[in-house]
């Protein structure tokens, strides 16, 4: 047999060109999703077999160019240069030829075996246009395939083209993008210099690319060649003499040349074949959705709809998961003998992970909406509508949706921050996201506001949400003024035409997010749950002030069996649980750190509750249940817990406690996702520290001010 017939192919293209849809059509569900090394740029790989060839595909991030100015561009370029795929498939939105072909000219200059895919041909045809693909293919010296991403049309032809090139052997196109004669002369002189430096090693086409990049002043290529001082000096002087004689900077001069070439190409190949009454759907939809008066209310209505649907529809699968988790923990309880292993499994692992997995339906549903907004083109419009407001606090318009999602759950919200291209803006959006009061904090507010502010509980809860938003805005503003100083990224954002997304793409996207979430649960949350369980289960034999076993015997003997005895026994068990809780490691830590909370007025019970809230904020309520002797099986509506807690805190302390709960470190799942999305332990720690610091200060202020008012 000959060598194995496997090839690696990279998909490149502009954002919104339908690249990911084509990738999904080619590979189906056989995808591996990860990150490019060291950066938070999604890397998707998949495999497809065609005519005896195994084709490995990699979906590069969507970019308008391959200069190294954004993370995505750098990642795409480094992949193409360093990992040298056998072939690059350049996906071009045929309805937007000129701008899409800019990237194509760069790929041609990089001297790569190339297949060009003219995607979204259905849109071109419906506009009464035709592309002469034969001429197109001749002028660019590459195979050209027509596709329709939404329907999968052209999939076979694309695979055939790939295999054809693989069988004929890979070779470059020998097509040159011609520039202005002065620029050509400068390129030629620089190129000769490169050829002398690397005799026989650099092919002509590649040395031309290097020369162009040097003339463009590309920082990565300059750094790479920095040993060759003479070459750099030559390139610099060529660059400045070009800029002087033309009165333009060199990147503009080169872009002029590329667009000139593209313009000629499009002139020759794109024809209006039949007259069509221009039916610009996008324009008409935008008249409504981007209307200066209706635009914002409609956007807020869509957001409301997203939350409403997520939480009402999500209710059902949440109940199933809850039932499944209880069934599993019951099954394990029955199957295993009493002891530590069983406690670890049931209380630690199943309880801990189960308590977080229950949010899976919400996360999946939220992402269904996000994916729909993104694929229809509405997401960019939302950013457009909100940008003025967001820019005021130093953020990008796109940051609004992740922040809003934070009201539901910070985990998907932080994951959604990936739609923000600028790494700085993305990081800032991630860091302030935990201040958006997620749904898990609501039970704590309902409980405490219900007890201590019965008559105006609603106002207090609303005030807390507002405080969260204001703190987020303030923190963003402060960070922008200090650590993130400098110019914010320009708001140059494409508004793609409205398109009906392929159901397949939406579902695959949703599936990916679910898997991402589950991966997190299986890792850090599992470990975190075990640690917290350990802290509240050990040391096992603590010195108790009461001999509970003897007391239990006494009750059983002295009282008649019946409701009274049951109640007495339950009270006793609770008292024992509370004392144990207090004396175990977690309780010891709670007591140790309590002095920190002294100025805020929190007692050791509050301190412990806040500690357990580190796993998930709603646990604060069940911890109070244990500590106030009403058992762990309580919720925020529980009357017994409310009675037990009434009078245990001053109202201003309760208010401060709620403010602290709102602002202090996010739950374990959020920390896990911050770590993952920032790829930095430093920023994760910073986020936790900032949350704790702000929570303490705000709670302190609340106590002081409330004392004066109440």
């Amino acid at each position, binding site marked *: 047999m000959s060598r194995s017939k496997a090839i690696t192919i990279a998909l490149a293209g502009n954002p919104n060109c339908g690249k990911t849809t084509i990738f999904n059509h080619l590979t189906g569900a056989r995808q591996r999703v990860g990150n490019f090394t060291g950066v938070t740029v999604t890397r998707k790989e998949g495999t497809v077999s065609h005519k005896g060839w195994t084709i490995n595909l990699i979906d590069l991030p969507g970019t*308008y*160019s391959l*200069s190294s*100015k954004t993370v995505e561009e750098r990642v795409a370029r480094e992949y193409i240069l360093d990992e040298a795929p056998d072939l690059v498939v350049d996906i071009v939105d045929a*309805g*937007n030829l*000129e*701008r899409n072909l*800019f990237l194509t000219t760069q790929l041609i200059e990089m001297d790569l075996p190339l297949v060009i895919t003219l995607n979204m041909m259905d849109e071109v045809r419906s506009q009464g246009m035709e592309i002469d693909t034969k001429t197109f293919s001749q002028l660019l010296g590459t195979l050209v395939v027509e596709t329709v991403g939404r329907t999968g049309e052209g999939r076979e032809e694309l695979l055939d083209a790939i295999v054809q090139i693989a069988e004929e052997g890979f070779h470059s196109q020998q097509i040159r993008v011609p520039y202005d004669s002065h620029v050509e002369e400068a390129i030629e002189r620089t190129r000769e210099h490169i050829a002398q430096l690397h005799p026989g090693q650099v092919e002509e086409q590649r040395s031309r690319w290097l020369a162009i990049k040097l003339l463009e002043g590309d920082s990565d290529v300059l750094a790479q060649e920095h040993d060759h001082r003479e070459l750099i000096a030559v390139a610099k002087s060529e660059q400045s003499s070009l800029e002087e004689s033309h009165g333009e*900077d060199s*990147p*503009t001069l080169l*872009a*002029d040349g590329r*667009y000139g070439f593209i313009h000629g190409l499009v002139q020759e190949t794109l024809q209006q074949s039949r007259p069509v009454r221009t039916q610009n759907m*996008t*324009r008409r939809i*935008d008249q409504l959705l*981007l209307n*200066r*008066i209706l*635009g*914002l209310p409609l956007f807020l209505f869509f957001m409301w709809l997203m939350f409403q649907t997520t939480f009402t529809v999500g209710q059902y699968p949440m109940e199933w998961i809850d039932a499944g988790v209880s069934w599993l923990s019951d099954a394990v309880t029955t199957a295993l003998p009493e002891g530590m292993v069983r406690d670890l499994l049931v209380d630690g692992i199943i309880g801990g992970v189960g308590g977080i997995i229950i949010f899976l339906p919400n996360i999946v549903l939220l992402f269904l909406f996000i994916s729909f907004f993104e694929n229809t083109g509405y997401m*960019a419009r939302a*950013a*457009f*509508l909100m*940008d*003025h*407001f967001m*820019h005021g606090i130093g953020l990008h*318009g796109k940051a609004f949706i992740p922040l809003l999602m934070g009201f539901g759950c910070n985990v998907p919200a932080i994951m959604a921050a990936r739609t923000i291209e600028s790494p700085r803006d993305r990081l800032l959006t991630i860091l302030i996201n935990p201040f958006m009061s997620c749904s898990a904090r609501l039970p704590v507010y309902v409980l405490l506001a219900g007890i201590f502010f019965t008559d105006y509980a609603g106002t207090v809860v609303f005030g807390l949400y507002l405080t969260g938003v204001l703190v987020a805005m303030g923190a963003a503003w402060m960070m922008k003024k200090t650590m993130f100083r400098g*110019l914010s990224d*320009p*708001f*140059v*954002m*494409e*508004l*793609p*035409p409205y398109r009906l997304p392929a159901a397949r793409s939406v579902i695959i996207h949703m599936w990916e997010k679910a898997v991402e979430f589950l991966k997190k649960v299986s890792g850090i949350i599992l470990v975190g749950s075990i640690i917290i369980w350990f802290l509240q289960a050990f040391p096992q034999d603590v010195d108790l002030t009461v001999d509970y076993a003897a007391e239990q015997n006494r009750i059983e003997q002295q009282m008649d069996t019946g409701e009274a005895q049951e109640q007495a026994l339950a009270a006793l068990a609770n008292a024992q649980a509370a004392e144990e809780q207090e004396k175990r490691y977690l309780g010891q830590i709670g007591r140790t750190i309590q002095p920190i909370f002294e100025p805020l007025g929190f007692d050791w019970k509050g301190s412990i509750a806040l500690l357990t809230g580190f796993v998930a904020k709603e646990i604060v309520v069940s911890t109070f249940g244990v500590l106030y002797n009403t058992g762990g099986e309580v919720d925020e509506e529980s009357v017994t817990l409310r009675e037990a807690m009434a009078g245990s805190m001053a109202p201003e302390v309760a208010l401060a406690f709620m403010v602290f709960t709102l602002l202090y470190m996010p739950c374990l799942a959020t920390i896990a996702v911050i770590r993952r999305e920032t790829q930095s332990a430093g920023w994760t720690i910073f986020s936790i520290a900032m949350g704790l610091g702000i929570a303490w200060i705000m709670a302190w202020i609340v106590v002081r001010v409330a004392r004066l008012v109440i």
Partner: protein
Amino acid sequence: MEATLAALKPGEQGALVRIQGENRLRQRLTEMGFIKGSTIGVDSTAPFGDPRSYSIRGYQVTLRNAEAEQIIVEI
């Protein structure tokens, strides 16, 4: 007559003369097809009058007014 893109009203259009301001904005715009002579038209305006969206080369792109002020067009 030369004017900045920000000065144009919705529905008006102009031909690009030059882009001023910092390199980053200029290079990004250049890559996206803002080349001398390109026709740029004003489309929608966001609720507070900023940003606005423009059409160029058959697609739509948003710009804050501060950015549009750096773009000089001939009308």
